């Protein structure tokens, strides 16, 4: 039902570089879990509305006023790598 290539494809969508033995194990695990989940097919849901959230949520607006926030220095304290007051990341554009 789910092939090793499917697993490799989903891993690349998930931005995870899997080792070969991980691909093997995950293929088996996902196969079993998806097999179990198949029980939902027994239910006719053609006339059922989906529920993504249990509360009747509406957009929440507030006045556009300036409130205290982190300084650049404070925000960068958690950074892995920084340079000249910015997060340092690998080169993106050649």
């Amino acid at each position, binding site marked *: 039902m789910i092939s090793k290539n499917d697993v490799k494809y989903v891993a690349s969508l998930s931005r995870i570089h899997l080792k070969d033995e991980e691909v093997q194990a995950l293929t088996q695990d996902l196969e079993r879990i998806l097999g179990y989940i198949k029980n*939902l097919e027994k239910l006719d849901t053609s006339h059922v509305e*989906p529920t993504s959230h249990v509360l009747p949520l509406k957009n929440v607006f507030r006045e556009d006023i300036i409130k205290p926030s982190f300084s650049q220095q404070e925000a960068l304290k958690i950074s892995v790598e920084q340079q000249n007051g910015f997060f340092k990341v690998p080169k993106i554009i050649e």
Partner: protein
Amino acid sequence: MTPNTLTAHAILDLIKQKKLSAKDVFASVSAQIQKTEKDVHAYATIFDAPQIQENAAVPIPIAIKDNICIKGELTTCSSQILSGFKPPYDATVIQKLKASGAVFTGHANMDEFAFGSSTETSYYGPTRNPWNLACVPGGSSGGSAAAVAANEAIWALGSDTGGSIRQPAALCGVVGLKPTYGRVSRYGLIAFASSLDQIGPITKDITDAALLLNIIAGHDEHDSTSVDLPVPDYTKALRNDVKGLKIGIPKEYFIEGIDPQVKKSVFDAIAILKKCGATFEEISLPHTEYAVSTYYIVATAEASSNLARFDGIQYGLRRKPDHIRKTPLIDLYEETRDIGFGTEAKRRIMLGTYALSSGYYDAYYLKGLKVRTLIKKDFDEAFKKVDAIITPTSPTTAFKIGEKTNDPLSMYLSDIYTISANLSGIPAISIPCGLSKDNLPIGLQIMAKPFDEEMLFRIGFTFEQNK
């Protein structure tokens, strides 16, 4: 004097009578940690010399699950990918606890990103059940429940996405409450599945759970899913009286797979509540058998999206690739995430990504959301007839460490009784109701209508007084 063995309400009484100081309480908790932590391993991080305000309203030592942000304290979701992460802000529940003078003992161990039912997937290694060190404490808030059960904290906060407060509370013999979705702010709770997650109390008795919910509940402008409803004084619901209440027993919850001792213990509790004047009737929640499947679609889909932010760019772990496979940036993402996430986290991210991916979205994710509607409707119908529903919290008592680690599906099925409350957003509590012949705790689950936590406290308190 061992104040660490007392409930918070007993401690607060003694402090009021000047028979005990906040310092004594913390010292006894600290001494207990010194004594039993090497066996139990309830904590991911133990904090250095926390502040104790002697005249504070509630100077109670509390363990906080490792996925709730405390400013300047290591907060990692017990995952390597957040190694070194010290949040620059407090979660709203932490601000509220600080304002009450609570004393933070440490960050409690958990399943990595709350993915698990046994606390075995923690990067820091498993927590052990204080009742039997060969057994798991349940999960994912296993460290929080074990800390309270081992008297290494008076209170704890956990988070519950599919039973992660209630199931470990049941397996460790303590009280665990999942409030109604929206009752407690999730601001500063590192998200697993945003439509299911709630923070809640883990305590030694019902009165303490009410006291702690009083502190943490309420609307928060930082969480648009927190509900703007008044917060009652939950201690007023602590009445030894269930006369006239109608309680439902869902027939789908007492089927094969349930440990006969668990079943007996729950029915013994039902008999006690009957004597106290409650009436019981069998009800049906017909879509129960679909709850686990629905949950593992909805929760993993949300998790795969929420965990996309952990990519080695801003904070936490960063793994620089040795050589370029794709591009320097993508390699950094992919290798950081390969090393940073454990096996169960990868499994769930993959499952969720698959369920959301093109070609499978309708068959899995959308299907899951539709069945979620049916499960929620089961409860809406049931609560037209009854005031509350009683079930076991977990089909079994604590299982052995390692027993289910190689069988993810059997691990997922240990949440079979707790998942539906998250899918339908209702409040649910687990309270201790007995011991097995192996001397392991059994938990009773009570569920009520949205925002009727008072019903849980009333029934729970009556049971506690009469058991």
